[in-house]
């Protein structure tokens, strides 16, 4: 059995702002007395570690991590702190090889037994490999890590653990539904072992390739790939080796696979361009189209929907879904696909979806200061987070398989809102010409006494193509800029009618996006150096849309929204296109 783990939530979700009361049952003897959970609490050591690990200045970061180790000597994050320090040293001070070697040695020596030393050796090897540093040392650590594994010991240990858990849970199946799972078979345990071993084979194989030991690398990587083909770095390196050997067809197959995962090493992506060009008349012009076709063929959206039909209660409201996501965020995959499906089920007269990209947990080249400000406004502490008409949906992330479940969860609030009366009348005229986008939004008939009303005007690109680390290639409705005097909307007097004009010079917007990405890259992501594989700062004039939102800034409730597709011919006359004029 290969278990599909869903490792969702991630560090970014550590204090997710979702109230999730977790009342405990009291149906067993000596049950723990509990109170409802609070969602924002963090263990003091976890908080201290998070703060230290997010420091950008490498010296200050290392100092803070060392302090953390002293302050919390019993923390479960001590090893993480050590590996984090090693990673910071390797990426920011690569010439300090003696210091790096000493630190690496200390980390491994800290392991309490063969198993832990093996795991730590693997982490050291991977850190050095990721930074292309001290590869002979990395080879030694990777080999030690591989050799620390023993299948018979693993199977025996896992069986013993299962027996212990079974003893703990015996007799509980009938009470509260806590039952015992079937014991894993030997075959399943061996498969798990082989999966883990394949990771270590892969690390060693990649190091051998970098050291020029191609034959050794090929043997190790072939073995790893045979066990598990879902290893982007392995596919990428096998592709590079095939290219080196002149086997272009094989190289192309491996390299396309690696590229579509978004996690291929940069060298593999360069090899892909070279091999594709070599086999296509010295031109890479058709490569992106080929990747598009392969992506659509290999990764169709698993959520199948039927077109929405108005109910008798259908109002004049355009429902707005705001999605905070990240291209390097694995659990965002489920949410991204769920909202993509929602955009199929509902027309843009029913639902507007806007995607705010964040640098969480990885740098995201579609993020910008406006999307980050919006995230702060909603107090988003993790991605994916999504709202429907301003209200956060109590859900979390999901894998590709989880997209249907997320879709089911967002469908309810969306369809509830579709029947809720619009609380403002909104008319929008928007046009794009040359480098300029102009928007005129008129708001009237506001049914709110709030003194905190705001009109937000958003510039979107309807689709951006970028294969990020989570594998999603097409990113819909990406927010590129937000309007208003401070890029934070316009104040709206309660009950009054008002008009707002917003214009964008697209060259300036693009320059702003580039400046942000350049600066973020120069600063580093949470203290670690990185390079964007691609900066998505260019704006496609033929791919734009505008969304206008009337919102109570205090409660976040959305009164009405409008969506204007700037790629469609404006209706004549009048030149208006608004979400509430259905």
């Amino acid at each position, binding site marked *: 059995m290969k278990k599909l783990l869903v490792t969702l939530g991630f*560090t970014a979700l550590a204090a997710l702002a979702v109230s999730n009361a977790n009342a405990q049952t009291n149906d067993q003897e000596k049950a*723990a007395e509990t109170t409802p959970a609070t969602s924002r609490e*963090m263990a003091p050591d976890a908080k201290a570690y998070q703060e230290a690990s997010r420091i950008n200045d490498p010296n200050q970061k290392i100092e803070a991590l060392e302090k953390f180790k002293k302050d919390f000597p*019993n923390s479960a994050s001590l090893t993480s702190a050590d590996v984090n320090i090693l990673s910071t040293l390797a990426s920011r001070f690569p010439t300090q090889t003696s210091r790096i070697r000493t630190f690496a040695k200390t980390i491994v020596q800290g392991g309490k037994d063969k198993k832990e030393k093996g795991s730590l050796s693997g982490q050291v090897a991977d850190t050095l490999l990721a930074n292309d540093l001290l590869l002979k040392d990395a080879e030694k650590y990777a080999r030690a890590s591989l050799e620390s594994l023993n299948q018979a010991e693993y199977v025996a240990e896992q069986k013993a653990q299962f027996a*212990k858990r079974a003893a703990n849970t015996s007799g509980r199946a009938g009470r509260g539904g806590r039952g015992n799972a079937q014991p894993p078979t030997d075959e399943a345990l061996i498969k798990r072992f082989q999966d*883990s071993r394949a990771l270590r084979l892969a690390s060693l194989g990649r190091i051998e390739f970098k050291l020029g030991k191609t034959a050794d690398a090929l043997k190790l990587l072939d073995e790893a790939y045979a066990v598990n083909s*879902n290893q982007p770095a392995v596919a990428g390196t096998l592709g590079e080796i095939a290219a080196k050997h002149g086997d272009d067809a094989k190289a192309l197959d491996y390299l396309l696979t690696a590229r579509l995962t978004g996690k291929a090493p940069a060298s593999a992506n360069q090899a892909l361009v070279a091999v594709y060009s070599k086999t296509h008349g010295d031109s890479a012009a058709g490569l992106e189209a080929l990747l598009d076709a392969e992506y659509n063929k290999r990764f169709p959206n698993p959520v199948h929907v039927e077109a929405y039909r108005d109910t008798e209660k259908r109002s004049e409201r355009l429902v707005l879904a705001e999605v905070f996501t990240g291209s390097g965020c694995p659990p965002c995959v489920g949410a991204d696909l769920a909202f993509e499906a929602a955009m199929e089920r509902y027309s843009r007269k029913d639902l507007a979806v806007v995607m705010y990209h964040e640098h969480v947990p990885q740098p995201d080249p579609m993020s910008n200061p406006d999307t980050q400000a919006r995230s702060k406004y909603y107090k988003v502490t993790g991605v994916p987070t999504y709202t429907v008409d301003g209200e956060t949906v109590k859900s979390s992330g999901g894998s590709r398989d989880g997209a249907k479940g997320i879709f089911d969860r967002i469908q*309810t609030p969306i369809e509830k809102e579709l029947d809720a009366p619009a609380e403002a009348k909104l008319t929008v005229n928007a046009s794009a010409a040359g480098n300029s986008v102009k928007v005129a939004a008129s708001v009237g008939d506001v049914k709110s006494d709030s003194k905190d009303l705001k009109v937000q005007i958003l510039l979107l690109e309807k689709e951006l193509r970028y294969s990020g680390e989570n594998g999603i290639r097409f990113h819909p409705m990406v927010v590129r800029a937000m309007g208003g005097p401070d890029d934070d909307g316009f104040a709206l007097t309660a009950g009054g009618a008002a008009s707002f004009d917003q214009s964008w010079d697209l060259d300036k917007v693009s320059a702003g996006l580039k400046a942000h990405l350049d600066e973020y890259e120069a600063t580093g992501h949470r203290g670690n150096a990185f390079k964007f594989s691609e900066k998505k700062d260019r704006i496609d004039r033929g791919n734009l849309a505008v969304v206008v939102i009337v919102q109570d800034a205090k409660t976040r409730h959305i009164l009405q929204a409008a969506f204007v597709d700037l790629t469609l011919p404006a209706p004549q006359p009048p030149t208006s296109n608004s979400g509430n004029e259905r």
Partner: protein
Amino acid sequence: MKRLLCASFAALSLAAGPPNPVTWKIESAPDKPVKAGARFTVKLTAHILEGWHFYSMKPIEDGPIPTRIWLAESQPFQLTGTIGADEPQTLLDETLHKDIELYEGSATFSLPVRVTSGSETGPRKLLVNAQTQSCNNSMCLPPTTVKLEVPVTIGK
């Protein structure tokens, strides 16, 4: 490789609220009064609904939320060492391409605790926070922190 959604996930709805796949039980705590300055061990077991899992205490870079257990502040008790835990299962995570440690079924944690010297005598409640993030094979719930109260009498 992939599993279908399990029934517990399919049953998720906003009206019903998220499921609660984890129930905590105090396995052992001092039966007799404990003197100020003395040490004792509290064992807590988390029982996990079938089809769900949560993660070990070992953090993983950009990975899921690990289990965290800590004592609430401002009480006459302190942790005196590393929290012991059952050996977790180690499995390959297909999304992260990393090994990940998790618990299914149950997990027991041992907390080495000391009564702060000079503490007033009498019945007290040791307050323990336990944070886990539960996932099934398709999705995860937001992490939750449960507050556990362990009755402890501080004696002379």
